[in-house]
């Protein structure tokens, strides 16, 4: 049994943000009280050994749920696999991660869904939930067997990595997915507008002679998919929103009652296109980093609830792939191990976002939208839980990262504020930054 003394509990599911003593027993959050005596605790323990953590000045919150990770298994295990990815997850404070379907082969049938699910169970760290593709082979022309795949454990459907360019196909997907109750996740990128662009089109791209991607490459599809969701009544989730125009479109659509949620990636909240240099491929990401104004709109959108969740879009790549001239390096940032800390340091500490909102957006909201367990510390719920030390600082070092990937803009830099204990179903899986 665990006794967390005088810890600051953040649990948006109970609208709770206050100091508490927390007891965890038998894989569950057992009780929470303003304070407890040793006698009371021992009575509850009924002879079970009690590990007491003096957690004053630290936070406890429900384990983070990341609805957008690329774990690369099957097929690209040199970049990451489900074991290394789920270890990276718990090191970073995530107890549930959704695995995107654009693997090799793509996850477009029940057998593959069950494979990913099983690999997650075998790994035994974070809960790994498979996302299935929307279309067979991610070819954008025929729907997958959504009902069968849901029965196999799929948590959502997405052709992420590739846009469904055919609007009729997207409309049909939103209709048919009603049979499952699961959301369709849109990658929000018009293929023709994005072209072979490398970064957001703007003054910085023009100066460096890097081919630009206009903001409209995203917003045009956001507008389209919002209209389709409105017309069909389908359940839509918009991935990695990065532009002011998208935020405005979503805000208006929500006001009209469209069944939509949207996510934003930490890197879009922290960096902008001006941070990119010609040889810094760690910041080459898709959708590309937006303007400074976009960054502000995203923070505002996350604050006012237009953007429902934070998701990492963890996109691991090998060093040799990223050690190339900018145009030749793949898009993506590996972020499971640094994302929470980066958000703490760059957004919470300067007062741009409250930690309560961050936890709501990264745990409670994803659980609600995707119908997942977790996202709460209500007594009786499974103890997927994080103890966060706001003072712990660490240099992001190649030697300590447990992901296979090193493509993070924070490599070699120091970050402050880290999860120092992580439980999955009451089992301690990470302690003092080491995965157990």
């Amino acid at each position: 049994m665990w006794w967390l003394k005088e810890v600051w509990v953040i649990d948006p599911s109970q609208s709770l943000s206050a100091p508490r003593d927390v007891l965890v027993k038998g894989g569950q959050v057992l009780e929470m009280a303003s304070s407890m005596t040793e006698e009371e605790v021992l009575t509850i323990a009924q002879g079970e050994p009690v590990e007491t953590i003096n957690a004053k000045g630290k936070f406890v919150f429900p384990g983070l749920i990341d609805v957008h990770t690329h774990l690369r298994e099957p097929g690209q295990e040199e970049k990451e696999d489900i074991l290394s990815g789920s270890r990276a997850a718990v090191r970073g404070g995530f107890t549930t991660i959704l695995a995107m379907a654009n693997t090799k082969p793509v996850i477009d049938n029940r057998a593959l869904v069950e494979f990913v699910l099983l690999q997650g169970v075998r790994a035994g760290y974070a809960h790994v939930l498979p996302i299935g593709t929307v279309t067979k082979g991610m070819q954008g022309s025929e729907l997958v067997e959504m009902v069968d795949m849901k029965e196999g454990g799929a948590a959502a459907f997405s052709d992420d990595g590739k846009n469904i360019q055919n609007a009729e196909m997207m409309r049909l997907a939103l209709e048919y997915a009603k049979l499952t109750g699961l959301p369709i996740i849109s990658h929000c990128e018009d293929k023709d507008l994005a072209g072979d662009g490398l970064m957001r089109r703007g003054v910085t791209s023009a100066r460096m002679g890097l081919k630009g991607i206009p903001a409209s490459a995203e917003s045009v599809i956001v507008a389209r998919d919002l209209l389709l969701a409105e017309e069909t009544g389908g359940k839509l989730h918009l991935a990695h929103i990065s532009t002011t125009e998208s935020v405005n479109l979503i805000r208006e659509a929500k006001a009209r009652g469209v069944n939509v949620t949207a996510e934003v990636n930490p890197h879009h909240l922290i960096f902008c296109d001006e941070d990119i240099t010609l040889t810094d491929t760690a910041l080459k990401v898709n959708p590309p980093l937006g303007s400074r104004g976009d960054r502000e709109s995203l923070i505002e959108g996350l604050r006012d609830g237009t953007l429902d969740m934070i998701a990492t879009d963890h996109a691991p790549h090998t060093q040799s792939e990223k050690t190339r001239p900018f145009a030749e390096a793949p898009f993506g940032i590996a972020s499971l191990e640094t994302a929470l800390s980066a958000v703490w340091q760059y957004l919470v500490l300067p007062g741009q976002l409250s930690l309560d909102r961050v936890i709501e957006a990264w745990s409670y909201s994803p659980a609600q939208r995707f119908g997942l367990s977790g996202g709460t510390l209500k007594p009786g719920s499974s103890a997927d839980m994080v103890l966060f030390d706001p003072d712990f600082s660490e240099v992001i070092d190649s030697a300590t990262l447990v992901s296979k990937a090193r493509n993070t803009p924070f490599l070699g830099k120091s970050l402050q504020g880290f999860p120092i204990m992580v439980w999955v179903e009451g089992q301690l899986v990470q302690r003092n930054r080491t995965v157990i």
Partner: protein
Amino acid sequence: MKWQRKDILAIEDMSVEEIRHILHTAKVMKEILMRPIKKLPTLKGKSVVNLFYEASTRTRTSFEMAGKVLGADTTSIAVAQSSVSKGESLYDTAKTIQAMRADLVIIRHSSSGSAKFLADILDAGVINAGDGQHAHPTQALLDIFTMEEQLGEMDGKKVVIVGDVLHSRVARSNAWCLQKLGVDVTLVGPPTLVPVEMAGLGVKLTHDLDGALPGADVVMALRLQLERQQSGLFPSLREYSHLYGLTTERLKKTGKQSIVLHPGPMNRNVEISDDVADSVEALIERQVTNGVAIRMALIYLLIGGSGNVVA
């Protein structure tokens, strides 16, 4: 001035003092080039590697000649621009060159930033002979050198650069170089090739060539990549040349004896009419010599050490 720089990657990060020092050194180099015996022992034992991922006989030959005149051993590695996934990566090639202990590497590559990428890995100096759409500093330096030879100090003068600015490393490098030296620069072309974000270069933009010409001392036409038409960036060569082609008639609008430059090779009767092209041809021989002089100056400054041929 004391030369500090290991590499020449882009004009953007160079100081006016450095640019002036290069131009001054190039002047001396040109005098040497004009001598009957133009072989110097200055860089004897130094090795210069030409690494060209894009075919460009003119630029490569110019660098080779510059190296040879200074007495360096020059090696050319012509790499076929194969698909990205195939073949040796630039990183691997850099490691090989590092092992060869070259003193200086000249690189031309289709990716913006590739010269900096190489320079970050190598102990050797690197000269950017054109990287993607980013920069072509030696072209800009030889252009300003030629302009000043013709017109004297360019400070306060006016230069119009017309054409496919968006995709042009020559336009970018010239824009930086000229504005640093106090030149009034205007970039001209259709909105698809001179989009608003080009304002980031800090110079004037316009879509109206005729309106930009009055007072121009130099008009530079950029080479139009004809395949841009297929990508929809302009409707036809006919309309392009009607709006932006340099003709004798149109050049009268400058109201001056302006000079016309073109980085070559020219598409005659597209960006430049036959008769104007002939006047440019006259300057080309001079440009070739100036190109060698500029490149000699850079090679000398980067690896010439203290062996002083230049007073």
